[in-house]
């Protein structure tokens, strides 16, 4: 029996005998319990005392599964029983832990039939705490080690455990909440399961009504679908024109256009909506200018479909631009050159060769924008007016006066149906239809330029739109300094003072601004979540790229799934799933961290897959044949070579955690308020000045994070180049981070 196994078994025993079994009331990291009656006080007692002193005898059987592995002292690794004992204790422990957790809840029995079977139970049970966590981790490792010993993954404990941990995490934090929401749709007012509840909420004019065809209002599902289709169409077309200008013309400010692609990453989703209000709202700058000029009354056109559509188009065009640059560049120049040598002119080449080759890419961009639009919460929240969409309706069903979880769950199911359909279409239908002509062979030749008419159209679209985008962002920064937009346009620092005031008081510095709290919470929670996201994401990527196992496709689908689940749905599902034991997380900072990890994990996975596919597999194999095990190989060969991808994953998940709002708004609490939900609160109270000032601060913080990381990475690259120049060889010409790997591939 190896040291690693002993370590984890010891951790399990520690969890059972020493650490408090149940969750701490005052937060995950507080150590108050140490001085407050531990170990005999009921709230802090470990499992063994809970069972003996406080009538929670059902915890005792867990000890069986921790004693069982001790038998391994007398069993050789080659023995078949070695694996059996480990699997039995690991699997048994996990299952028993879960069953007792669900069966006995905060008010006695968790299910009605248990009460009728065993009679009422006086003892209650809280959320699982440190002790349970240690036990669960220990059981999981025992199980994975056992599976490895039985021959899974060629006996590789590291790989088996990595798969086990990722599967367990995704199951608990993605599948469990989502299945909980599906069940939630069937829960009636009295808490019983009934199809009637689902039918009442589902077949509802508010959801599927088609009144707008005859001048009335349409159901929220149709609203959402119409908005998503409009947004996806406009962003795809705009993205395509931008991509064409950047890749196929001699436009002078191409580089500046590319900067646009960074904007959505660092822009909280509702900021565009806010800026639009400052421009086109009833007292907006542009509105007033035109109403004075033309003598018409200022309208409310912005609040509703046109406004949301405009805001989403502004927000998501850069994303489809980014996708379509790759698509347009992916069309092999030699195809176009071949077409030209066959006497086709530029227009014919574009319409008959290039465009058909881009079609799957265009569809991909369309679906991506479709999903983004469906999931968008910030812009509809700010600009919605009477135009309801699913994401906001879900929010109001939960937090509004209705507090109707059943309705929220049904709406979430509808939304989930839309986004998952788009996601499935993207993966299964488009997945097979890629004409990517990147073959690894050098492809000489230049892309064919656009013909004159197309060029004029593209320029005429791109230049005004780019200027418009710049104006919007200028408004964001300018707006923070205006006293009351539209009423009192004098410049002031009052907004910043309100939010970020600092005073020197009697006891040193006083952070008197109202926003400091949420800003620190946001930054610290994002900073905690970022490395964890990177670890989970890159480990998953490693398993997907480098290991083969049965069920790998399902594994991949599961890990990418959370990308297609709108934040609002995640938020609702987390509330439904983690509000009661055994996992009682709502109101804590932990739930925010977890939410970010699994929301942003697909980004890390994709980045990791892309980077790892660049590394030749022979590097791993060389390390293995040199006697390193898979963990050492991962640590000493793969991770160092992935450093750029790690940095990217860190920055990206940090920034995405800061900007996310849709899921967060359900999960924040008084102790853990996040910047975005705080800003939404400001907007609801009409304090646009402070809100937009706060937004500018967030953008600056994120820009600073990105730039400083870029600089740090850039420096490392220089150092390596220096080194190459020192040694006076002729291979240094193309130094830099990727060149050794590229050499590896080329040679």
């Amino acid at each position, binding site marked *: 029996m190896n040291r690693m196994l002993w370590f984890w078994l010891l951790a399990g025993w520690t969890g059972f005998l020493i650490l408090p079994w149940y969750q701490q009331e005052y937060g995950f990291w507080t150590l108050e319990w140490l001085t407050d009656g531990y170990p005999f006080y009921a709230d802090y007692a470990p499992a063994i005392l809970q069972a003996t002193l406080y009538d929670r005898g059902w915890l005792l059987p867990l000890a069986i599964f921790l004693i069982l592995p001790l038998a391994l002292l007398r069993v050789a690794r080659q023995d078949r029983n070695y694996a059996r004992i480990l699997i039995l204790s690991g699997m048994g422990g996990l299952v028993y832990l879960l069953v007792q957790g669900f069966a006995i809840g905060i008010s006695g029995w968790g299910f009605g039939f248990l009460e009728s079977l065993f009679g009422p139970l006086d003892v209650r049970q809280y959320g699982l705490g440190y002790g349970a966590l240690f036990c669960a981790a220990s059981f999981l490792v025992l199980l994975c080690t056992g599976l490895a010993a039985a021959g899974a993954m060629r006996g590789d404990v590291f790989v088996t455990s990595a798969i086990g941990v990722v599967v367990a995490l995704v199951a608990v934090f993605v599948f469990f909440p989502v299945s909980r929401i599906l069940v939630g749709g069937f829960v009636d007012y009295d808490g019983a399961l009934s199809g009637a509840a689902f039918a009442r909420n589902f077949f509802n004019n508010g959801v599927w009504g088609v009144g707008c065809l005859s001048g009335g209002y349409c159901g929220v599902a149709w609203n959402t679908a119409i908005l998503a289709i409009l947004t996806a169409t406009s962003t795809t077309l705009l993205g395509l024109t931008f991509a064409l200008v950047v890749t196929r013309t001699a436009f002078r400010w191409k580089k500046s256009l590319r900067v646009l692609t960074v904007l959505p990453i660092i822009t909280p989703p509702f900021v565009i909506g806010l800026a639009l209000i400052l421009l086109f709202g009833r007292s907006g700058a542009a509105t007033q200018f035109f109403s004075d000029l033309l003598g018409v009354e200022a309208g409310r056109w912005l609040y509703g479909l046109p406004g949301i559509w405009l805001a989403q188009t502004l927000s998501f065009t850069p994303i489809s631009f980014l996708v379509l640059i790759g698509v347009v560049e992916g069309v092999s120049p030699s195809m176009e050159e071949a077409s030209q040598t066959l006497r086709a002119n530029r227009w014919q080449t574009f319409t008959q060769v290039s465009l058909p080759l881009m079609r799957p890419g265009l569809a991909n961009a369309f679906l991506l924008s479709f999903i983004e639009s469906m999931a968008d919460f910030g812009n509809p929240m700010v600009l919605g007016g009477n135009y309801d969409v699913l994401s906001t309706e879900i929010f109001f069903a939960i937090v509004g006066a209705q507090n109707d979880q059943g309705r929220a769950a049904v709406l979430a199911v509808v939304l989930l149906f839309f986004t998952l359909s788009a996601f499935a279409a993207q993966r299964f239908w488009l997945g097979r239809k890629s004409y990517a002509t990147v073959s690894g062979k050098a492809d000489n030749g230049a892309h064919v330029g656009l013909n004159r008419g197309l060029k004029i159209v593209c320029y005429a679209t791109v230049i005004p739109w780019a200027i418009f985008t710049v104006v919007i962002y200028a408004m964001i920064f300018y707006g923070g300094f205006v006293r009351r937009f539209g009423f009192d346009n004098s410049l002031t620092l009052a907004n910043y003072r309100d939010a970020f005031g600092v005073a020197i008081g009697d006891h040193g510095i006083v952070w008197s601004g109202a926003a400091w709290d949420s800003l620190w919470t946001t930054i610290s929670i994002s900073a905690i979540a970022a490395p964890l996201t990177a670890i989970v994401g890159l480990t998953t990527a490693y398993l997907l790229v480098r290991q083969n196992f049965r069920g790998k496709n399902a594994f991949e689908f599961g890990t990418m799934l959370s990308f297609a689940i709108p934040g609002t749905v995640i938020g609702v599902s987390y509330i439904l799933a983690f509000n009661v034991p055994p996992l009682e997380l709502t109101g804590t900072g932990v739930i925010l961290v977890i939410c970010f990890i699994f929301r942003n994990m697909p980004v890390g996975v994709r980045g990791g897959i892309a980077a790892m596919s660049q590394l030749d597999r022979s590097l791993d194999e060389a390390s293995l044949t040199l006697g390193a095990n898979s963990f050492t190989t991962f640590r000493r060969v793969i991770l160092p070579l992935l450093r750029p991808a790690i940095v990217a994953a860190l920055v990206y998940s940090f920034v995405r955690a800061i900007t996310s709002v849709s899921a967060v708004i359900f999960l924040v609490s008084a102790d853990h308020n996040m910047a975005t939900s705080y800003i939404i609160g400001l907007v609801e109270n009409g304090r646009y000045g402070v809100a937009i000032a706060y937004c500018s601060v967030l953008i600056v913080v994120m820009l600073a994070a990105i730039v400083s990381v870029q600089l740090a990475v850039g420096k490392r690259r220089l150092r390596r180049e220096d080194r190459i120049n020192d040694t006076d*060889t002729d291979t240094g010409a193309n130094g830099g981070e990727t060149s050794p790997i590229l050499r590896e591939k080329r040679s």
Partner: protein
Amino acid sequence: MTLKYRAGSVVFENVTKTYGRGSVLAIDNVSFDIQPGELVTLLGPSGCGKTTTLRMIAGLEHASSGRILIGGKDVTQLPATDRDVSMVFQSYALFPHMSVAENVGYGLSVSGNSKAETREKAEEGLRLVGLAGYGDRLPSELSGGQQQRVAVARALVLEPEVLLLDEPLSNLDAKLRRHVRTEIRDLQQELGLTAVYVTHDQEEALAVSDRIIVMNNAVIAQQGTPRELYEQPASAFIADFIGDANLVEAEIREISGDYAVVDLGGVTQELPHRGYRPGPIRVAVRPDAVQLTALDPVPTATAGEMSLKGHITHATYLGSQMHYSVDTPLGPLFVIDGLIDTPIAAGRDVGIGFSRRGLALVPKN
């Protein structure tokens, strides 16, 4: 400190490897035996299973059935990490983020050697391949040939029982290849290593090997010394793959002593019979075993005595030799002729003779 080697044997017993739930057969019931201190080449066309075989010795692939023994121990289920073999990869697979010395010392450091010992042995390894003093460079700062030698040093410092080389020369240019293959052979002989060498280049295989195992379609086609394979091919495939033989139909008239009397398109030849019985047979004719005599355009008396005649369709001048394509009653023949001063022009008729050295009997099918 010097590196010490205990050369081990490699034994395959009825090894089969399938992919994709058994639908693709990569290795079909292969058995062979490699003696300690021997350099054996696995040779074959691409997709024949030679690289899979090598990777199974390394432990990077695992047998679906059968047994693999290294140094007398059964390692069939042992992963690569725990096997006492090391491998030189086709791409070299040098870790680009580590210096040359770190690359060479990697295997030692991950198996728990002290830093001092690792450094000392790494230096020793680099000295062995003639790269002493290059330890601080990055792999990207070395030429292709030097990188290749680093890869060899990295494999050697672990003092493996068996050294595996996967097409180690394929990334070098033609001139360097001949030089490096000699170096590898010398090193192997000097250290007394067991080495398994994979290549698809028959000339390279003939040059470096003690023994060659030729594989085709997931099975061993023939194994033996380079001379045995060239002179006594067991099948038409071997004759064609090693040394580009022309395969022509013939007939064994009778067996006399060690020789078979063969009728080769009217020409009678005596060839070692190697167990074949009288009847139809095929003969592998090496391109340089055909002698061409230009015939006068106007037939003369002597020409009539030549029993086999042909017609030259192509004649190519290659500096040191002439290549001819000849139409004959036996079928088209590819001929290499060293007599470049008296080339025969395309379109001429020629008389054809054979030298016994370059002919071998191979079975009909």
